């Protein structure tokens, strides 16, 4: 019991000293505003096709990365935590891949049976 209390003490002491400079938060904040403005501009100027989609994804991942790395402090966390959080995302990527194949098949069947009229 005393051992655990001692550990909590050290944990707290370490957390107190680990605050970041205010500048980094303000910069990330500003950057998030600018990136959001840019992604709004993608719609404002009505970019279409691959340009639109790649710009949307680019700004989205950049914003998500900045929020996770700096606002959620993942940049300063130990790898044991960071890796536990990020590797499961590959499962989501797999799911997206599977469902992409699935919606293409559904779309094909709907065209085939509803529009063309079947075989």
């Amino acid at each position: 019991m005393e051992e655990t209390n001692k550990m909590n003490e050290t944990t707290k002491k370490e957390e107190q000293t680990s605050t970041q400079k205010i500048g980094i938060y303000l910069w990330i904040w500003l950057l998030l505003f600018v990136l959001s403005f840019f992604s709004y501009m993608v719609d404002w100027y009505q970019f279409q096709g691959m340009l639109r989609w790649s710009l949307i994804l680019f700004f989205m991942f950049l914003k998500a990365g900045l929020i996770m790395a700096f606002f959620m402090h993942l940049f300063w966390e130990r790898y044991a935590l960071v890796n536990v959080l990020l590797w499961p995302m590959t499962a989501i990527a797999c799911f997206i891949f599977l469902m992409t194949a699935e919606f293409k098949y559904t779309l094909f069947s709907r065209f085939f049976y509803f529009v063309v009229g079947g075989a």
Partner: protein
Amino acid sequence: MSEQKIDGFELKPGFKGMASDTGSDQTMFKGVHWGKAMMWIFLLSDTFVFSCFLISYMKGRGSTIVDWPNTSEVFSLHVGGVPVPLLLIAIMTFVLITSSGTMALAVKYGYEKNRKMCGWLILATAVGGLTFVGMQVFEWSKLIHEGVRPWGNPFGASQFGSFFFMITGFHGFHVSIGVIFLFIYTYKVFAGHYESKKRGWFTKMKGDYVEIEILGLYWHFVDLVWVFIFAFFYLW
């Protein structure tokens, strides 16, 4: 991290540190408060919930043979008779990012034991979140007046309504819960619960400003989810 001292145990950086942390016989997340680790695990599971929603939206939108409604027009607001595309959504995005920034600063000031500054910033965050929910209520009622229903709408593919109400509704629910907790923690900070070491939620452990960081993690996650909803639902 160097202040961590466990008998004959040295914390290594990088992947070597990950291997030794994971293989160690004590806590795996060294120097991470248990509440923070649990919040991260919760956020990970919540990520999967929102991913399933967005993936089902992708599947639904991709497989319909009717044109998807043009979100640029559906979500436009008329300012002086001129339709401005996605105006309300853009304002909502900026409000949420503003509240995320104030939350990040609140966490910083909390750890520096700056009670007043921390409290005001959490209050600002709560007000931002409340503004966001208010604008979402306005957006919902506008679309419902225009005839958007979960089973159909006048603009295009009938799946649009169900995905819209489910995804933005679930996100709005998260924001609402967050706002409630932000107000509670505004009170806790101003009342000095972390100076007097008052006990926290459902625990005998003494309250500490790390709770503000845990609250912050949840709030940033809400902002993070909005980044994806904004990209995939409104802009795509």
